[in-house]
C-alpha cells in the first residue's frame, strides 16, 4: 500500500531564516506530487506541483521554491522566511496523468514564523 510522509511535524523558525520541508511517498512510482498551504483551518492553496523528476510548476508567486530530486521525494524550501509564511503545509500525491486521479495527503507540517 502507498504511504506518504512529511517532516518535521511542527517547526518554529525566526523571520529571515531558511526553510526545508520534506515529503516522501512509498509504494508507488511516477506520482504527481503537490505542496499546499492551509491558513486557519480553511481551504487549501496550491503552491507547487510536479509531474516528474526536476519538473516543477508554480501556482502562486512567493518566496518559496520546490524541488523534486528523486521520483518520490518533494522538497519545499525558502532562503528567507517571512511572517506571512506561517501556516499548515500539506504534501499530497496522485497517480500520474491528468484529471480524475484520487489525491492523498500527508499528515502536514505546522510552521510558525516568529
Amino acid at each position, binding site marked *: 500500500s502507498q504511504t506518504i510522509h512529511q517532516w518535521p511535524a511542527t517547526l518554529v523558525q525566526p523571520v529571515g531564516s531558511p526553510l526545508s520541508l520534506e515529503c516522501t511517498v512509498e509504494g508507488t512510482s511516477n506520482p*504527481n506530487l*503537490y505542496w499546499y498551504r492551509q491558513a486557519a*483551518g*480553511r*481551504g*487549501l492553496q*496550491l503552491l507547487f*506541483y510536479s*509531474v516528474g523528476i526536476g519538473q516543477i*510548476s508554480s*501556482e502562486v508567486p512567493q518566496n518559496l521554491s520546490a524541488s523534486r530530486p528523486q521520483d518520490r521525494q518533494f522538497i519545499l524550501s525558502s532562503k528567507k522566511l517571512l511572517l506571512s509564511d506561517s501556516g*499548515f503545509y*500539506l504534501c*499530497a500525491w496522485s497517480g500520474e496523468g*491528468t*484529471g*480524475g*486521479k*484520487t*489525491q*492523498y*495527503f*500527508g*499528515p*502536514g507540517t*505546522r510552521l510558525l514564523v516568529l
Partner: protein
Amino acid sequence: TQLLEQSPQFLSIQEGENLTVYCNSSSVFSSLQWYRQEPGEGPVLLVTVVTGGEVKKLKRLTFQFGDARKDSSLHITAAQPGDTGLYLCAGWENSGYALNFGKGTSLLVTP
C-alpha cells in the same frame, strides 16, 4: 480565483440533526472529491464522484454529483460528535494536473 464555492462556511448543530453541505461551481469537472479534515491532520478522502447524477452512500453520509457535473452535495443523517471537522470539496478539471479546492465547511456537532 476560487472555482468551487462551499456553503455554509460554518455549521453548528446538535447530535441527531440532519445537515446538507453544498459545493457549487460554474466549471465542469471530470470528477469531484470530498474530504474530511480534523485539526492538525491532513485531509482524508471520503468519496469520489465521477458520473453526472451519481449518488454514493457512506454509512450516514450521502454524496450527490450534479447532472451537469458542476455541483455536489453532502448530506449527513443523524449527525454525531464524531462527524465534527472541516469538509472540503475538490474538483478535477478535464485537463488539469491539480485539484481545485473549495474553502471548506467547518462542522461542529455537540452532544
